[in-house]
Structure formats: C-alpha cells, structure tokens
C-alpha cells in the first residue's frame, strides 16, 4: 500500500507531469509564467486545491451519486478555490493583485476536476492524497521552470532580482503571449525527447 502511494506521488512529478505530459491546465501555464513569483504562487494555489479536493472527494466517493458527481466535484473544487483566494487576499495581497482573474479560474482548470473524475472517485484516501500532492508539485515545478526561462531571458531577472546586470538587453519577446506559446512548445518537445526510450 505504502509503495503504491509513493508511486502515485512520483508519477505526478515526471511520467504524468500535468502541463507537459497530460497537457492539462495550459491556460495558467501560458499566462502565469511571465514572472517566477506568479508561476510559483499559481502552482502552490493549485497544489492546495488539488490536495484538498482529492482527499475530500475520495472520502465522500461512496456518498456522491453517480448521476450528479460532476456537480458535486465542482462544488468541492470551487470551495477550495475561494478559500485560496481569500487567503491570498489576506496574506499575499500583491501577488493576489498580479494574478487577478487566474485564481478564481482554477475552478475551471482541468486538473482538479480531471483528477477527481479519473482517480479519486475510484481510489482510497491515501493514494488520492499522494496523487494530489504529486500532481500539484509537478505542476508547481513545471510552471516555475517555464517562468524562470521566460523571466531570465525576457526581463533579465529572477523573482524581480536582476541577474545579468544593467547592460543586459532583455529579449522581451519571451514575456509576450506568443513567446509563451513558443517556450511551452519547446518544453513539450524537450520532455518528449527525454521521455522517449
């Protein structure tokens, strides 16, 4: 049992890492990776929502009738998202202002709902918890890596701190929306090459 839970955890970090392998949750992946703090914050918010909703849904899976399961999943996910939104407003107000509409949009992100439907509705609490944590951390790492690439080249900084000094000419294409698509495409390409054996 413990071993399977550990496997459920690690699959989210590599073999099924959400944006690059499952190709889910791409909207925030594109929009929230302009700066590292945005990508990191988004990842942590999604992790919180995923762990919470995964555990709760697998606990309640016997109670939820099959016909209305999607409605119930959405209520659970939305509750956690609003909790995150209020907490971010209370404790990280600047980040909350920067991320804006993308926090409430976690509700319609495919990852929490997808995990609930594909995994938690059938599995026990422990694997669901491991799955949520793994997927969430995988998502956080993916977004942070992409954000580091984009911020370093597009703005010459990490977490707003300059890395190349003032003489660096930022390649600002990287922080625009088309640049996001190109970076994401390159990441997908690299991940596919690495995954091929």
């Amino acid at each position: 049992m413990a071993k399977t839970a550990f496997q459920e955890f690690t699959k989210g970090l590599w073999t099924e890492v959400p944006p690059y392998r499952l190709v889910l949750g791409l909207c925030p992946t594109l929009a929230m990776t302009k700066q590292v703090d945005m990508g990191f914050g988004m990842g942590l918010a999604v992790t919180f929502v995923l762990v919470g909703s995964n555990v709760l849904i697998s606990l309640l899976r016997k109670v939820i009738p099959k016909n209305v399961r999607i409605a119930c999943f959405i209520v659970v996910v939305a509750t956690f998202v609003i909790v995150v939104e209020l907490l971010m407003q209370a404790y990280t107000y600047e980040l909350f202002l920067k991320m804006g509409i993308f926090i409430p949009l976690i509700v319609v992100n495919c990852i929490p709902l997808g995990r609930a439907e594909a995994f938690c509705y059938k599995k026990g609490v422990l694997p669901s918890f491991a799955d949520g944590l793994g997927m969430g951390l995988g998502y956080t790492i993916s977004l942070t890596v992409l954000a580091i690439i984009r911020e370093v080249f597009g703005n010459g900084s990490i977490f707003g701190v300059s890395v190349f000094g003032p003489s660096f000419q930022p390649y600002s294409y990287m922080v625009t929306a088309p640049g996001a698509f190109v970076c994401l495409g390159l990441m997908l390409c690299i991940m596919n090459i690495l995954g091929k054996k």
Partner: protein
Amino acid sequence: MREMLRLFVVVTLFGAISGGILAGVRAGTQERIEYQQIKFVKGPAILQIMKGCTNDPLTTRFKIKDGKDERAFFVGVFNGKPNTVAFEATGKGYGGEIPVIVAVNVDNDQIVGVGVTTHRETPGVGARVQTDPKFTSQFKGQSIKEPFKVKGDGGKIDAISGATVSSRGVTGAVVSSGEVYNRLKSNIVEKMKSIKS
C-alpha cells in the same frame, strides 16, 4: 423517485456545507483583507500626506456612520498630539470617479495634505493630478471650509494645463470632503479623544 430524492439531498447538502465553510473563512479573513486593501490602495497616499507623523496612521483608525455608509478615518499624531484625520472623498474626473484622500488638522480646520489614490484618468495628462505635487500642494494650509474652484470656474486653484476636468474632479472631491467634515466633525472630535498619542 427515492433515487431522485437522494440526488436532491446530496447536492443540496454539498452546497449548504460549502456555503457555511466559505462564510466562516470569509469572516475569519475579512479584517486582514481590509487592512491589506488599505495598505496597498489608500496607504501610499495617506503616508505621503501625513509625512512627519509619529504613529502608523493605517492602524490608528476608526469608523463613523454617515447616512447609509460607513467612513473610515485615519489618525495622524503630530508633535505628540493626535490632531489630524485623513479620509476619502470622491470627485468626478474624466475617466470616472477620482478617489482623493484629504488630511485635515482638527484644531484649526486646515488642510494638511491632499493625495489621489487609484484613478482612471488619462496617463500623462489627467494622471498628473496624482503625480504633480505642485497641483495638490495648493490645498495645503487652506481652510477645509473654503468652496474651492479651479481658476477657469472663478476660483483660485491653478488647474493642470490640458487636464482641467481631472483638476476640477480633485477640487470637487476636496469640496465634498469639506461637507463630510462639517457634517461629522463633532463625531470625529469625540472619537479622537479616545486615541492615545
């Protein structure tokens, strides 16, 4: 029929419980969120016009009911005496309402400072009412009871050239703050007494 009833009950329960949890979280974070909004939205303007006070005006605050609304007042301590209040009033600008913070010395009813917070005026034109200290400093030291007008309207306030509407908006906000001050002065003085310097 029984199955239908079960769906009904489950979804209703989910909604009700989620609503209850959210109400709880909101109640728990409300005060903190309010403080964050004050700190990041009104805070910079308040601190700028209250320069030289020895306390933190953002935490030294009280509320007074004004008709249907509640107004927040921020107290500044100068020379060991809490004698200045800052509060918000709005005037109509070019891009909508302009919120203006006005600080008044309660002892002699003189304006200590005027600062614009968030606005939607045209950048580089109307927005100069916020960034040009020459404009707002015209109010400094004047009596709050004066019916301010811009020069074009027969008053003595120099409008920013090219931004008459925005200047008029700020001037109007100061005039309406005078009305608020007159209406609530007795309550303000009463509340100020309870504040320790």
